[in-house]
């Protein structure tokens, strides 16, 4: 009996300790990023310029989606998430996660996130209301869901009348090919390529841009890291913006970026060509009154999640 009780007490203590230890800070900066999502600062990442600029080692971890980034940040395993999608961030902030938005990684058109209708269904922008009552594949809780919502507003179809199926992009593309769904909303080069083979974009890239549908990826940071290492955070953002400026001047080493993004050079150039990297001044404007501010407002984000004070102006 005594043994059992002492075992139970010991495991309670061990459990409590293990959780509190996991949250203590380390002398390194842990950054989350995406593969197949090329950004100019990956050159700095490969050449260890971040380590040099921050003065401590920088550990990069790749993630599959922005929600997982949030999870890792809340668990204390990641300090900075670079190019997290805005929608996962908003979902996290809505659930009162102690995260802050400190920078815009890039804005991008619908090139990388889009809805594709199958040719067999014969549905196009003109008769999009026929989508009602049919099955559409959408990865819920991602930027693609936002694009889906906005596209439906543009073409005048009622989302609530559709049979929305939760599917990740790869499966959504497969379901479109097999004819299980008439439309799939997806992101990622390979999925879109597979979907476009049997269908066409509901809105072309230009149409989407005209309708004001755009994706925004951001840099988010845990409150704790922001409070404890404001200098490091500032430097991180500064180096990133320098890399963006270098890319804008055409001086980036594209081979290095392609290799680090695990993409072919041609595909990588096409993808990165669709991104718009903002200057610090543009970023501040977007965060305060531009696209980002509008986006946050449109999604009923609680105020106080944005901090512009770390931008290198």
């Amino acid at each position, binding site marked *: 009996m005594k043994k059992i009780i002492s075992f139970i007490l010991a495991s*309670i203590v061990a*459990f*409590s300790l293990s*959780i*509190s230890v996991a949250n203590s800070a380390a002398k390194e900066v842990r950054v989350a990023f995406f593969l197949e999502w090329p950004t100019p600062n990956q050159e700095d990442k490969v050449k260890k310029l971040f380590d*040099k*600029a921050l*003065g*401590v080692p920088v550990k990069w971890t790749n993630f599959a989606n922005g*929600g997982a980034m*949030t999870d890792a940040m*809340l668990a204390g395993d990641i300090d900075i998430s670079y190019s997290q999608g805005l929608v*996962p961030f908003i*979902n*996290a902030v*809505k*659930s*009162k*996660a*102690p*995260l*802050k938005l400190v920078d815009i990684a890039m804005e991008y058109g619908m090139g990388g996130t889009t809805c594709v209708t199958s040719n067999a269904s014969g549905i196009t922008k003109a008769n999009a209301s026929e989508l009602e009552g049919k*099955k559409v*594949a959408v990865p*819920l*809780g*991602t930027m693609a869901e936002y694009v889906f919502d906005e596209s439906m507003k543009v073409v005048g179809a009622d989302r*609530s009348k559709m*049979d*929305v*199926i*939760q*599917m*990740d992009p790869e*499966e959504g593309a*497969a*379901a479109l090919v*097999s004819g*299980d*769904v008439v439309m799939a909303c997806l992101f990622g080069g390979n999925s879109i390529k597979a979907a476009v083979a049997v269908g066409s974009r509901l809105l072309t890239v230009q149409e989407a841009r005209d309708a004001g549908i755009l994706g925004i990826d951001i840099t988010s940071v845990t*409150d*704790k890291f922001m*409070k*404890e290492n*404001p*200098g490091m955070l*500032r*430097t991180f953002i*500064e180096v990133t913006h320098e890399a963006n400026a270098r890319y804008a001047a055409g001086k980036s080493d594209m081979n290095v970026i392609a290799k680090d993004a695990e993409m072919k050079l041609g595909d990588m150039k096409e993808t990165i060509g669709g991104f718009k990297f903002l200057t610090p001044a543009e970023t501040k404007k977007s965060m305060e009154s531009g696209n980002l501010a509008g986006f946050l407002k449109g999604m009923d984000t*609680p*105020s*106080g*999640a944005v901090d512009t004070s770390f931008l290198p102006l």
Partner: protein
Amino acid sequence: MFTKIITFLIFFAVVGCILHGRRIIKTEKVDAVFGNPERAKGGTHWVIVGSSFILLTWLYYSWDIAKGFYPKSANELCQVAKVNDSLLSLKYLFPIEQRQFKSTFIIKSENKNIDKLGVEIQNSQDIRDQDKSKLLGLIKKTKKTIPLLTNEKLLENETNSKINELTNKIIWLTEDFQKVSYPPIKSLEEENKRIEALKTQGGWGSSGTAVEQTIEIPIIPETKKGLKFDAAAKELKIISDEFFKLRNHNPDYKSAMKEIKDEIKEYRSGLGDTHEIASTFAKDILKVARRIEYASIFPPKTLNAMQESLIEFDRVQKKEQGSLRYVDIFLFPAGTIVSSGPSCSEQGSGRWLPKPSDTLNKFALLLKPSVGFKNIPLIWFEMMDVSKIVGFLVPDWIADIIPGEYPVHSEDGSVKPNLKSKILNIATGEFKLFKIPVPMGHIWDSFLRVFLGLVLGIIFGVPLGLFMGLNRFAKGFFDPLIELYRPVPPLAWAPLVISVLGIDNVGKVFLLFMVSFSIMIISARAGASGTQLSKIHASHSLGASRWQILRYVIFPNSLPEILTGVRVAIGMCWGTLVAAEFLAGTTGIGFVENVAKKYFQYEVIWITIFVMGMLGLLFDVTLRKIIDKTIPWRGKG
């Protein structure tokens, strides 16, 4: 209130059961020796202790006990968290919770970075010697800016007095903070406003009116103690902001820095495109210089008084927390309340382990058919016309083989039905009969999928398994096929099955069928081949036919194995179902969990876990009853 009662009940139940158990051991006279299964019989009291223990752990780590006994503690801890939040950036500069000054650390690392850069420039092959000497000169200058910041003599009076002012502010705050009258009563108007705001502010816990809303922690201070910390947090924030604006940029430093900046600018503009590397080096030097400029570096002794005052304040605020501190330590295990900008949140186990009371509330909400999850109820019924069943059962081609043609619309634009079209309507279920209620919803869908997969597995698996156990051809023919696909984890089939059979129920049921099929074959086969030969010989000599032997000897003999197989299959089916519903879903428990995960709805996630556990248990208990009823000979042959 509910949680309180439960906690006490659990406590008494555990104590009572343990005492009861000890008494039984003393009074019981069982001549069962160790190893006799008789000794494991009974023991309901230990079941109570075990379940209570699970519940108690849940109540404790989800901080529901804290919520039950100290419902105001979250609000008060939120105010304390605000103070800690305001203190954090200040505290981090001093060796209070760190080993050294933040500025010491920065100077150390920047010195290292400067030296490293110097070595790099020295060793670089790609730049001219004149650039080298120029750059090294710049590096030296940059390094010299550090002593300008740390020299006590160079510290400006203005900066010094500002630091003293801030220090005094902290000291005054510390003194005021301990007074009962703190915070001073503001205007009546503001006080009324706060009271008004308090009324609209909800309590601690998740909202019981919307699925989407997550845990709320009331942020406006409700108690006197909370008010105190809230006011202190606001003052500290101002002090902290002022301090971070303060820089030790004395005239000497400013001029040195300006010189470096101008020199680098001039130097870089003088360089052509061919000397890009030198230009980059110059830029790197500027970066280091700017980092030093941005950091709050002061002479070593300047901030001592401030450090003392902060430590003192920290001590006082901990003291003022009083009993709250112990509530925090003991009733908020593995985490606490954290303040972040405009809201407070639970961080730690309270975040991902929802409170039993909240989970129950949310479950009740989800069960409401009008709410449900994504507009589909968890479990409810809908009225379905019996004609749909007729339409499902009668094949459509029956209408095609009736002689005649389907009606064509006439000139006046009307369509006259004939016999052929009427039969087609019946075959497709397009007519009206009476309506019956049928169950629907997420739980029902998942249940039906598992049930169908299981039944199909039994229908096909058991005969084939028996056949394989009795027949050389069947064993040889089917063995490689079954053995090849059986060890593959069912999840590995999932993407393929969904590509081939689609995203509807067919694919999911087929996946579950594959799982149960192989298990049923294995168990039926083992049961058939395990029949005692003497029994078969006996029935043979009594003149039984092959069918009779199969029906009355082999099948009853393998039934225990088969039913055990069914129990295993159920467990596997549930596991696979969730994964199948993860992949593509519009309904089902797995779908609910997957979507809830994306929106961080932890209560919903736990609800799905419990529902699955309960359904699995239901299946298993039913099966145990069936086993007891149908095969009383189990273990006795």
